[in-house]
């Protein structure tokens, strides 16, 4: 959090200025955007644990696979449309499930936990949902 506090050196824009000039507010927003992005990345690497690293690598892998499929369809054509949809949706579905798992197992402070379920339960749910998802996908791609 210390990093975050240091970056907030810029003066806060008064609300009237934001209302009067839309262009100035948007440029401010953009610069805000880049600084906040930077601080996010910083804090991300600070809080990374091995377990989270595993999940995030898996997420990145899913994104790459989805992108490859998408590019392939644009280049080659979507002839077996079922197959493409099945493949694409399975990556997207697995992605959101994994993100849910990540959110459920990991929270910054223990007292701010949003989920009332234990990480073990979360993993069980994750496996259950993934099985359903892939069973349907398997059925879908014929």
């Amino acid at each position, binding site marked *: 959090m210390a990093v*975050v*506090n240091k*970056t*907030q050196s810029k003066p*806060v*824009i008064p609300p009237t200025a*934001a209302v009067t000039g839309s262009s100035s*507010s*948007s440029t*401010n*927003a*953009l610069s*805000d*955007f880049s*600084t*906040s*992005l930077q*601080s*996010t990345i910083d*804090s*991300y690497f600070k809080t990374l644990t091995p377990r989270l690293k595993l999940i995030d690598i898996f997420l990145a892998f899913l994104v790459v696979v989805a992108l490859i499929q998408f590019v392939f369809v644009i280049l080659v054509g979507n002839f077996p*449309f079922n197959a493409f*949809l*099945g493949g694409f*949706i*399975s990556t*997207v*579905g697995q992605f*959101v*499930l994994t*993100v*849910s*798992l990540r*959110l*459920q197992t990991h929270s*910054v402070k223990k007292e701010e936990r*949003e*989920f*009332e*379920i234990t990480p073990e339960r*979360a993993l*069980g*749910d*994750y496996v*259950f*949902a993934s099985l*359903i*998802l892939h069973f*349907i*996908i398997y*059925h*879908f791609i014929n």
Partner: protein
Amino acid sequence: MSSLTLSQRTVDNIQLFLKVTILITIAGAAISSRLFSVIRFESIIHEFDPWFNFRATKYLVSHSFYDFLNWFDDRTWYPLGRVTGGTLYPGLMVTSGAIWHALRKIGLPVDIRNICVMLAPAFSGVTAYFTYLFTSEIKDSSAGLLAGAFMGIAPGYISRSVAGSYDNEAIAITLLMASFYFWIKASKEGSVFYASWAALFYFYMVSAWGGYVFITNLVPLHVFVLILMGRYSNRLYAAYSTWYAIGTVASMQIPFVGFLPIRSNDHMAALGVFGLIQIVAFGDYIRSKVPSKKFKSVLIVAIFLIIAVGILGLFGLTYAGLIAPWTGRFYSLWDTSYAKIHIPIIASVSEHQPTAWPAFFFDTQFLIWLFPAGVYLLFQDLSNEGVFVIVYSVLCSYFAGVMVRLMLTLTPIICVAAAIAVSKLFDVYMDFSELLQSKVEVEGIKESTGAKAKKTKVTGLSIVAKLTVIVSFAFYLFLFVYHCTWVTSNAYSSPSVVLASRNPDGSQNLIDDYREAYYWLRMNTAEDAKVMAWWDYGYQIGGMADRTTLVDNNTWNNTHIATVGKAMASSEEVSYEILKEHDVDYILVIFGGLLGFSGDDLNKFLWMIRIAEGIWPDEVKERDFFTSDGQYRVDDLATDTMKNSLLYKMSFHRFTELFGHRNAVDRVRNQRITQEPDLNIVEEVYTSENWLVRIYKVKDLDNAGRDLLSASKFEKETKAGIKKRIQKRPDLDLRE
């Protein structure tokens, strides 16, 4: 005192026992109140659509599942046929097929018809249970029990789920409540497990009813409203993402739905919210890392950009033809006169008409005025689940006002909201703990000061007030039960295949003309005979008479229906060509003029004309069927176009004869028929007991090559003895 202090566990056990008993009683009440139709009439499939479902179910249990999915039905929509397996929602048939097989496995071979008849009542008990669970999640279990009880007997739901009403809605409402329950549970706990169940029930719903689009839009709308309210949480993300990812891919497994979830506009809201929640989740992650003030401007800019891009993309893709535009039924939801102008076939269906005001009271009685109170109470402590109910009720109130049949989707939420209101009321007014406490105090302390006396007086007054409220609401509840039973037994339990009337002495008289006529068709016509009738009777002819029809209640091909309409509305010469082109052997018309049955073909005639006019505006003109002063007449004042139309002739053929050629009165339209129409191209083969159904056989081409008009004219003259044919009879005497 010691008897009052029960351990927490005992209380829990007693509560559980009471709940189970009450729920079983509710299910029993729900099922038994739906059996009026079986008791009054018999175990029979009702109305129109259920006959198709029944026929499809019979096909399913007599063939394999794959045969069923690949079923091409050549006995409907002659000569086109219908890809039935790919154009129906198989959930209902598969459900009853599975029950049939399961019962056979355990040694109970039940007739498939009885399973179909009893399916809707059985599922209504399950609906009551899921309504209980749903409401328990929103308020507490006492509200849940009330909601379950309301749902079990509310006429708005009974109207579509009496025994014999074997329609998609029969199980769809159960699945609707189940999906909503799991969705609420998932979004409350952020549980992937419950979200998966919500998706699975959503899949079942998709397989059962076209109304699944309602869930497809309501759940994203709930999420969207919560995001707008700043109530985004990671729980919401987990629930919605899981539901959408699994639910969408699952819904694509139904052949009829296919790729719609990514192609049609109806489903785009769900996709958009799915994209939105990813971005919001990412934004939320960033927000947890940066100070909020700085984040606000980022968020606003980002959201506006995304919405703009999304809407532009949607329009762009629609124009590029990648996404199918909204369907006509969808437009008619927003612009109530849209269908009337553009698609007469949609407007012609009676259940697509706007709801009349009394219908709301009729269908839900006192729940309708508790409904806003319940919604108000939900506004007071605005929980995430409350938002769902509010969104649901606002959306559905509108839809129910536009279309009668959507009353069905409104009823559950009316029950839920009203139950919340009533249970809140009871929470406040049934709370006698204060009284008990003060009594204990009085007994314990035995100090009778003036202040104490005053207090007991106040409690005495409050008891009266509380009792008044409780008694009056108990009375309302009693009235509600009474009303529901009355409505169910009188209004919603008629199979409409069999009509009931009263004899002058008050005894019941059943008019069974439909089945009589369909049975005649089945027994007396060739197995491949083609029967032309207005589309309303297509499913019944297919189900009961087992004959090939030209059009049926599926109404997928407007032109084909218009062709039938044109054949009915045109003069004999024109009609005959159409009939021959379509190989029609028999024509079936419904005529209520003798009985006073107002839903007959002559009253539906205007829709036939309008639908035909939509395709052939030059040949069929609605105006020609009205008299010069704009009246719809069938008597002597009727226009020539009317008198020459085939339907008119078939309806009134030999009608005057029945009255001895004078004072023939059409009892539906209260008009006097004096002239016998001149019918040449068809001949009457069957008329049912009360003249409700009349069947005509289309004459073959004349043997001598004359056109039928002159042929029958010739025959008539022969009969009347104007032209005696000189027949040279062969000598039949025995030759010697």
